[in-house]
């Protein structure tokens, strides 16, 4: 292909944004779990918000190349926002409180994004880590507001949209989280396949060249960082709403580090990595801590080392046969271009 016409490129990019049959399958399975796994709502809820949280990190790491070890800052901020809004009965309706918490986290993300613009990867790791530690200590110090190390007690959640109560079995909570995850996933998908998303990938690959072709690098990084912060804030708010509780643990370094692990397990830069990683990570954790409540961190550490050694690309490649099979049945792809699967 010597002459790459803009039309050809555009066509290819549009084709890439098409829904793949496997994606339909993924979401069908996710929603089917509501009926198929009634005893597992609590862990599924955790997977849902962790998946959303990981998706948020994927937006900046996988698409814009910003390494962060302090993503828990936004997660925790969102969690405390949602918990405080409910506790002081400022906003009683969870969906509205969720949106407000997300916007609050976006504001925080916007303000701190300017710190992240400075310097390269190592600096970014330190800056993001610093912001998270700072917020954790602030929350610890402001005990009158946050409850300090005891956590925020006495949060009571009102029914979702005034109709569905957060029940003890976690059914409504899970459905709520899953719907929020799905809607935000659709939005993220739209973002990454938009020209804006493509320009981010150009920045990730080579910031200098990107700015040379006229992409305003800083502006775009600020934008995606702000959006990702909003996503993380909503994930945190989901945790706070489904558990009716917030504690300093939401800001923990371990949370940011675990998140990076989740994304490493699932793979970055294709949106599903965070969701699949969250699924694998939580199930592993639950299973191992059930088998050996005392020594499970050892086994999870060992498994992670093995996973990273084997190479996370291979996890993606396990699904290769299915993907080829799915491609064969993908009529749209045939019309436009064969293969070219991202």
């Amino acid at each position, binding site marked *: 292909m010597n002459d790459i016409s803009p039309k050809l490129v555009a066509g290819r990019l549009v084709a890439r944004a098409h829904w793949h049959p496997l994606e339909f399958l993924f979401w069908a399975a996710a929603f089917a779990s509501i009926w198929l796994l009634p005893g597992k709502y609590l862990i599924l809820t955790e997977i849902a918000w962790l998946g959303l949280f990981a998706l948020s990190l994927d937006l900046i790491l996988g698409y814009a190349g910003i390494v962060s070890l302090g993503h828990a800052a936004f997660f925790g901020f969102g969690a405390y926002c949602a918990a405080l809004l409910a506790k002081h009965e400022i906003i009683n309706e969870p969906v509205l409180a969720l949106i407000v918490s997300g916007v609050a986290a976006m504001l925080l993300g916007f303000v701190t994004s300017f710190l992240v613009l400075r310097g390269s990867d190592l600096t970014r790791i330190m800056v993001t880590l610093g912001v998270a530690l700072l917020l954790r200590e602030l929350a610890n110090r402001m005990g009158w507001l946050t409850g300090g190390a005891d956590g925020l007690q006495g949060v009571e959640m009102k029914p979702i949209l005034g109709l569905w109560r957060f029940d003890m079995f976690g059914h409504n909570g899970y459905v709520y989280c899953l719907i929020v995850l799905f809607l935000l996933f659709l939005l993220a998908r739209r973002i990454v396949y938009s020209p804006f998303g493509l320009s981010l990938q150009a920045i990730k690959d080579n910031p200098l060249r990107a700015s040379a072709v006229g992409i305003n690098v800083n502006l775009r990084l600020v934008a995606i960082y702000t959006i990702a912060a909003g996503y993380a804030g909503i994930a945190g708010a989901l945790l706070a709403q489904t558990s009716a509780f917030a504690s300093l643990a939401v800001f923990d370094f371990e949370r940011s580090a675990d998140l990076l692990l989740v994304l490493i397990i699932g793979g970055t830069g294709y949106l599903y990595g965070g969701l699949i990683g969250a699924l694998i990570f939580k199930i592993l954790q639950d299973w191992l801590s059930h088998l050996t409540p*005392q020594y499970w961190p050892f086994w999870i550490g060992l498994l992670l080392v093995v996973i990273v050694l084997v190479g996370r690309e291979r996890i993606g490649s396990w699904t290769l046969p299915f993907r080829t099979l799915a491609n064969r049945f993908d009529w749209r792809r045939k019309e436009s271009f064969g293969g070219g699967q991202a």
Partner: protein
Amino acid sequence: MLRRQLLAGCAALAFGLAAAGGAAAQDVFKIGLILPMTGQQASTGKQIKAAVDLYMAQHGNTVAGKKIEVILKDDGAVPDNTKRLAQELIVNDKVNAIAGFGVTPAALAAAPLATEAKIPQIVMAAGTSIITERSPYIARTSFTLAQSSEIIADWAIKNGIKKVVTMVSDYAPGADAQKSFSDKFTAGGGTIAEAIKIPLANPDFAPFLQRAADAKPDAVFIFVPSGQGGTFMKQFVERGMDKSGIKIIGPGDVTDDDLLPNMGDQVIGTVTAHLYSADHDSAKNKAFVEAFKKANNFRPNFMAVGGYDGMHLIYEALKKAGGKTDGDSLIAAMKGMKWESPRGPMSIDPDTRDVIQNIYIRKVEKKNGELYNVEFATFENVKDPVKAAKK
């Protein structure tokens, strides 16, 4: 003939097995034990788990026709985990009671679930006063910080200590300890030179100790959660504060039996008030310590007796309720229950469901080459002073 007998035998056996199987499924009493088995508070989890195992080994696993089954979960002392695990235990495993709770935030996080599910929540470790008020289904077999903090204040006044710096971990039990001590101590004519709060997670005591030393007090009142006492004592000695004549007083968490044997001779003479010492002089305790050490290779501490007595409370409540397993019957049975624990006599306050027990003043001494908290004065049947003051 033989064949017929064999057939009949087989049928009887099958029938018997089926009956036994059915009975077993019906008559199991499940206890969800949520403890920090990993992380900073892991020593609490280790002690309580060992004590629960010991109690069940000694008393069998069948009470009032029910088979007791314990399901252990690790929450790492992170309250969100506690809440999820408690919920899973209640919803999926259908437990009849939840127990454990290494730290106050964990106990508080689970309290609304106990209320909603109407099952007993037995607090075996956490020591903030308010816990038992958070659900009518909570009973406690550990202690409240105020119990020992008030009594050590009393002792300090009577023993010529005039000026004290308080150092407590910055969370609810620390605040309880600090307040109870200061109120009693200042009421008795003492002065608090400085009230220092130490971060709960990963504490470095050095800067705080320096501030305490600068105030030149007669004594430092210290509360840190079980497991952090060793680091505190080490840093206290490193700064030479033991030689400058500053005494250490406080609730007994700092000279916890679990860590005491490795603290070194510098801690000799430290005076604390607490509910339990492995050295407590009673036949019951001697037998307990011996059996515990034999099974585990380490010494039981106050967390272990909390777990041991927690199991005792569940067992006895089941007996008293005559096989009823609903939360209301069990809590009713627990109220006012009295028994002889390895720690000494104790009971459950019928009004508050909190623990009433003797508090002992102890001094660290060397006995048979090992460090022990040796009890030398007893305050009998101490109720939680915070709740008593509210009335």
